[in-house]
């Protein structure tokens, strides 16, 4: 059997699968986004920009997503950076692997059930009851933007820690020694050496968290109680309740476009930072 034929046969199943289950469906979404809603729900073929002109009708979902997603990304970064720093610079080699696994593992477990856990912690019997007992008032936490942000940081923290860890771990430690030898106090070394050199990791982490957050549905619907809704919630509503497929397709295309802009921005930034374009293993 020729080498060429072997390659084709090996690639055929995966190729067909990607064609039928990925490329074709994405083409359908684009075509549908220029269509119209059928009277009884669903889709009728058309070539119109009505759906895109209608996007402002779902402005609240876009606004919520485009404010809470960046906010959640920044909060995750602020919490993740010191942990990544600790893992890369201070943790003993013996424990480092285990500690890293402990960061990765939650990311792969059910986000549905992990978000559900916060209903207990933020609900009336949880943190508010504790605060009340301490005499700090009885704030309402569940079904607020605060609860959604907590869920976001909790769910996506691992995704932020790993790329930052990788960039800090690769950092040439001799640079820090040189900085210290030249009389820079530790904090100044951090600001002038460590932080700039870990920017590629920060950029990767922020990009990953942000684009995954753009499509989030579970966290706002479980912890936001219908009051804080994302584009994902609008999409579920459009497809499964109001059955307005054409409009839903237009919202999906817009969502993917916003993501593409983010990724391009990231690529541009990475080129400017001159960072290594290695894949960060999230596995």
């Amino acid at each position, binding site marked *: 059997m020729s080498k060429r034929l072997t390659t084709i046969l090996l690639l055929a199943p*995966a190729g067909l699968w990607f064609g039928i289950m990925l490329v074709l469906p994405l083409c359908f979404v684009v075509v549908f986004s220029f269509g119209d809603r059928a009277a009884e729900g669903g889709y009728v073929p058309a070539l119109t920009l009505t759906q895109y002109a209608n996007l402002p009708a779902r402005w609240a979902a876009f606004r919520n997503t485009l404010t809470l997603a960046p906010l959640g990304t920044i909060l995750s970064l602020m919490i993740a950076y010191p942990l990544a720093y600790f893992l890369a610079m201070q943790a003993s080699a013996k424990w480092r692997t285990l500690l890293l696994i402990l960061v990765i593992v939650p990311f792969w477990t059910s986000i549905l059930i992990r978000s559900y856990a916060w209903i207990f912690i933020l609900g009336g019997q949880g943190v508010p009851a504790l605060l009340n007992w301490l005499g700090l008032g009885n704030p309402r936490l569940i079904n607020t933007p605060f609860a959604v942000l907590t869920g976001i940081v909790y769910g996506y923290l691992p995704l932020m820690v790993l790329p930052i860890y990788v960039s800090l771990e690769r950092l040439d430690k001799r640079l820090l020694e040189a900085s210290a030898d030249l009389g820079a106090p530790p904090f100044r070394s951090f600001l002038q050496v460590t932080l700039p050199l870990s920017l590629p990791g920060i950029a990767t982490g922020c990009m990953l968290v942000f684009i995954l957050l753009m499509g989030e549905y579970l966290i706002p619907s479980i912890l936001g109680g219908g009051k804080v809704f994302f584009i994902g919630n609008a999409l579920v509503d459009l497809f499964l309740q109001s059955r307005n497929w054409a409009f839903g397709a237009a919202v999906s295309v817009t969502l993917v476009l916003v993501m593409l802009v983010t990724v391009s921005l990231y690529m541009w930034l990475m080129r400017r930072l001159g960072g290594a374009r290695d894949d960060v293993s999230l596995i």
Partner: protein
Amino acid sequence: MKAYAAAVYLFLYVPIAVIAFFSFNAGKSATQMMGFSVQWYGKALSNPFVTEALRTSFTVALTSATLAAVFGTMAALALQGMKGRIRVIADAMIYVAVMVPGIVIGIATLIALVTLFGWINPLLLRIFPDGHAPQLAMGLVSLIAAHTLFSMALVIIILRARLSGMDRSLMEASADLYAPPLATFRQVTLPLIFPGILAGFLLSFTFSFDDFIIAFFVAGSETTLPIYVFSSIRRGVTPEINAIGTMVLATSLVLLISAQLVLRRGTRAPPA
């Protein structure tokens, strides 16, 4: 610094512990601990809706992870060392499969398959006019197909990292010693990449078993365990859901830690 790290680990694991803790509640309330009991595990496992959802989830996870491991490995082997246009297209598709949000993949699959079925089903009626025409609908098969897509991308990514770190001279040596390609594959390549395949299978299984959003769109009338849990949560929190949640988390944790061990053991240099 250590104290800070400990606090973050607590933040990551306390919620999981909270669910596990309340799942052993003897009382009926989800949030008031009334003594220790495993009754809710018994109740959950004798609830026919739960067992049915569990069976569906298990079938889908097992089938899609197996398909992904086989086809993904084949594709990764073909792509190894390949350059040119096919490679660029393959990389782009893998990237898109992983990066496009699950919700968009779910929606896209739903509208594509429903439309295609709408075209094919009348044809089938015409081909089988005797009233026994098979009709296509969203369900188990569409769910397996959608999960296989993401999992296949996952397997290819894991294996690519492994194959690129592999010593090619081993395969060349095998060929120099006149081993036919299939023998080289069986005796050299496969043992080297097997940990990667196994880890990919375990991760794929976990992904499929935990996925909610894609299944929500493409499962048709089927109910997977995450779909069951989600609709139950909307009706309120119960110790039964805590018991199911604890079982799901425990399953994922065992699979994930196995995957990590397999991957890390596999990368260690063999003894000289």
